[in-house]
C-alpha cells in the first residue's frame, strides 16, 4: 500500500512539473494506470486556469467524469464554466467524418486561440487514441499526425498527453508513437525520450531519413556517454565533498569533545575552588570565634585590673598615674569595639540572608527616636518620607539605616540645629533611597575612602568612631545586589544614596 501511495505521489509530482509546450505519450496497460496519470494531469490544468479538453473513446464521457469526481476533481463546475470539455472522436479527430492530420492540427490551433481569447492561460489536451484503430482513420495518418503535431508545440500555448493502450496497438505502432513524442509517461515516471525523432527527420523520404537517423543515433550515443560521464563526475565530486564534510564534522566533533573535556575540567576546578572557599570560610569562622574569646579575655583582664587600680588605689596614684590608667581603660574599650566591629562585619558577609518587604519609613522613625533619646537637648528635625518600603533582609537593612542615620546624627552634632532627611527617589527607573544631613559633610575628593573599613575622614577628637559603619553598610548593600554612593561638601552636609 505504502509503495503504491509513493508511486502515485511520485507520478503526481512529475505531472506537476509538466508545462505548456510539452507533448507526451502515455503508454499504459490498465485502466488504473491510465487514470492515475490522466486525472492529475487534468486537475493540474484546472488549477492553473488552462482549458482542459478530454477526448474520450475507450471510456465514456460519463465514466471519465465519474473517475474525476471520485478523485475529488470538481468536474461539474469545470464543465459548466467551460474550463473542462469532454468530447468524442467525432467532435475532434473525425469532425469531417474522416481523419486528416492537417485539418486536425488546424482545429487544435484554432481551439488554442479561442481558449486564450476566453481568458485561459493555455490549452491542455488529452485523448484516448484507440479511435485511430477504427476504419475511419488509418494508422499511417495517425503517425503522420503525431509527427507534424510536434511543430505546433513550440509556438502555441498547448500541452498534450496522447493516451496509447499497449494492449490495443501493435508493437510497430507503439515504436513509432515512442519515436514521435519528446516525453513519455510510463509507469510512475515521466521521461525525456532519447528515441524521439524530430518531425523534419521523421517526415523525410526513407533514403534521406536513414542517414539522418545514423547521425541522430550517433549523437544519442555520444550524448548518453556525456551524460554518463557527467553523472559519474558529479557522483565523484559528491563523494569527495561528502568525505570532506565528514572529516570536517569529525574535526568539529573532536573540537567539541575537547571543549566539553575542558569544560568538565573547569567545573571540577570550580568545585575544588568552591570547597576550598568553603573550608576557608569555616576556618574564618573558627578564627572569628577564637578572636572574640582569645583576644578579649586578656583585654577583660587589662580593663578589669586597671579599673581595680583606679578604684582601690586611687589615693596612692598621682594625677598623671590616674590619667595613664584612664588611657589604658579607654584603649581597651576601643580595642574591644574594634574586635566587635570586625566580628560583626565578617558575620554579615557569611550569615544567611532572608528577603522580605521591609517598612523603611517605620524603621527610620524608630531609629530617629532612639537617637533623640541619647541627646534629648539637641535640636534636630527628622524629615522621614512615609510609606517607603524595600525588599531585603530586615536585620541588615536596620543596620544600614542605623549607620546612615547615626552618622547623620553624629556629624550634625557640632551645629546648633540640624535637619536629617530620609526618602526615596527614582533614578534610572530604580528606587534610590537616601539619607541627607546638613552637618559637617566631607571633601568629595575622599569619597572613595568613606566605604573602606577603618578609614576615617575626621579625627577621633572631632567625631568619635572607629570607621567601620560605612564599610558594613556597603557590604550589606552589595550582598543585596545594590549600590551605594555619597555626595557631600565640607560644612554643607552629606547625602548617601543606596539601591537594593
Amino acid at each position, binding site marked *: 500500500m505504502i509503495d503504491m501511495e509513493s508511486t502515485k505521489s511520485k507520478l503526481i509530482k512529475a505531472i506537476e512539473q509538466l508545462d505548456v509546450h510539452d507533448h507526451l505519450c502515455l503508454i499504459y496497460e490498465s485502466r488504473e494506470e491510465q487514470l492515475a496519470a490522466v486525472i492529475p494531469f487534468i486537475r493540474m490544468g484546472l488549477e492553473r486556469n488552462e482549458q482542459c479538453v478530454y477526448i474520450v473513446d475507450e471510456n465514456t464521457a460519463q465514466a471519465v467524469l465519474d473517475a474525476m469526481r471520485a478523485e475529488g476533481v470538481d468536474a461539474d463546475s469545470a464543465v459548466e464554466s467551460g474550463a473542462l470539455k469532454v468530447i468524442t472522436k467525432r467532435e475532434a479527430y473525425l469532425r469531417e467524418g474522416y481523419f486528416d492530420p492537417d485539418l486536425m492540427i488546424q482545429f487544435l490551433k484554432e481551439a488554442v486561440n479561442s481558449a486564450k481569447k476566453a481568458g485561459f492561460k493555455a490549452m491542455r489536451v488529452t485523448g484516448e487514441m484507440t479511435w485511430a484503430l477504427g476504419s475511419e482513420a488509418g494508422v499511417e495518418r495517425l503517425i503522420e499526425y503525431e509527427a507534424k503535431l510536434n511543430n505546433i508545440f513550440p509556438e502555441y500555448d498547448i500541452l498534450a498527453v496522447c493516451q496509447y493502450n499497449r494492449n490495443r496497438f501493435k508493437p510497430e505502432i507503439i515504436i513509432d508513437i515512442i519515436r514521435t513524442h519528446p516525453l513519455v509517461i510510463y509507469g510512475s515516471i515521466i521521461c525525456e525520450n532519447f528515441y524521439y525523432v524530430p518531425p523534419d527527420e521523421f517526415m523525410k523520404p526513407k533514403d534521406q531519413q536513414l542517414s539522418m537517423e545514423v547521425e541522430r543515433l550517433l549523437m544519442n550515443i555520444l550524448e548518453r556517454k556525456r551524460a554518463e560521464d557527467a553523472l559519474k563526475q558529479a557522483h565523484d565530486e559528491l563523494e569527495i565533498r561528502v568525505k570532506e564534510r565528514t572529516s570536517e564534522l569529525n574535526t568539529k566533533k573532536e573540537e567539541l569533545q575537547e571543549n566539553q573535556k575542558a569544560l568538565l575540567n573547569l567545573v571540577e576546578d570550580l568545585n575544588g575552588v568552591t570547597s576550598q572557599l568553603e573550608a576557608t570560610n569555616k576556618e574564618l569562622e573558627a578564627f572569628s570565634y577564637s578572636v572574640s574569646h582569645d583576644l*578579649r*579575655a586578656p*583585654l*577583660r*583582664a587589662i580593663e*578589669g*585590673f586597671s*579599673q*581595680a587600680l583606679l578604684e582601690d588605689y586611687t589615693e596612692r596614684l598621682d594625677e598623671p598615674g590616674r590619667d595613664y590608667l584612664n588611657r589604658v581603660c579607654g584603649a581597651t574599650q576601643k580595642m*574591644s569595639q574594634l574586635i566587635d566591629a570586625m566580628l560583626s562585619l565578617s558575620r554579615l558577609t557569611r550569615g544567611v540572608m532572608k528577603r522580605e518587604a521591609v517598612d523603611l519609613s517605620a524603621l527610620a522613625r524608630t531609629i530617629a527616636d532612639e537617637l533623640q533619646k541619647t541627646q534629648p537637648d539637641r535640636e534636630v528635625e527628622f524629615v522621614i518620607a512615609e510609606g517607603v518600603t524595600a525588599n531585603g533582609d530586615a536585620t541588615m537593612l536596620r543596620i544600614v539605616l542605623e549607620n546612615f542615620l547615626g552618622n547623620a546624627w553624629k556629624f550634625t552634632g557640632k551645629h546648633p540645629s540640624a535637619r536629617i532627611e530620609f526618602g526615596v527617589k527614582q533614578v534610572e527607573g530604580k528606587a534610590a533611597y537616601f539619607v541627607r544631613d546638613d552637618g559637617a559633610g566631607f571633601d568629595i575628593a575622599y569619597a572613595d575612602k568613606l566605604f573602606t573599613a577603618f578609614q576615617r575622614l575626621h579625627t577621633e577628637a572631632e567625631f568619635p568612631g572607629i570607621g567601620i559603619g560605612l564599610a558594613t553598610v556597603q557590604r550589606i548593600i552589595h550582598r543585596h545586589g545594590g549600590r551605594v554612593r555619597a555626595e557631600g561638601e565640607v560644612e554643607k552636609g552629606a547625602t548617601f544614596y543606596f539601591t537594593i
Partner: protein
Amino acid sequence: MNEKIILLVEDNPDDVALTIRAFKKNNILNEVVVANDGVEAIDYLFGTGKYAGRDISVLPTVVLLDLNLPRIGGMEVLRRIRSDDRTKLVPVVILTSSKEEQDVINGYKRGCNSYIRKPVDFNQFMDAVKQLGIYWLLINEPMPSKRRA
C-alpha cells in the same frame, strides 16, 4: 556560724582575681574556695588529695564551674558531683566562655542548675558575677545542711 562557701572552679588566675574582687565590691564576703582545675575541685568536694581529711559534710553553697579545665574537665566534675549521694544536691552554675550549643545541652543533661556565658566585656562580666552571687547566696534558699538536719 554556718558559713556559706563558694567553690570557684577556674583555671584562669585573672578571672579568679576579678571574680573575687567583684564579690567583695558587692559586699559578698563569703569564703571563696578556688580550685584551679577539675582534680582540685573533686579533691575538695570528696576530701581527697590536697584536701584529705576535710570535713566533707560541709558543702559549698554554690559551685561556679568553668568547663574548659586542665586535667579533669568541667563536664566530668559535674558528672561526679551528680553521681555521688553526698554531693548530688549541690547547686552547680556553669560559668564558661564556651558558646557551643552542645555544651549547654550537655550541662543541663548532667544536672547543672544554671548556665552562664562569661561575658567578654569587663563591665558585663562584673555585673554577671555580682548578680549570680546575690542570687545564689542571698535570694536562693539553700538545702538545709546535714549537720543541722
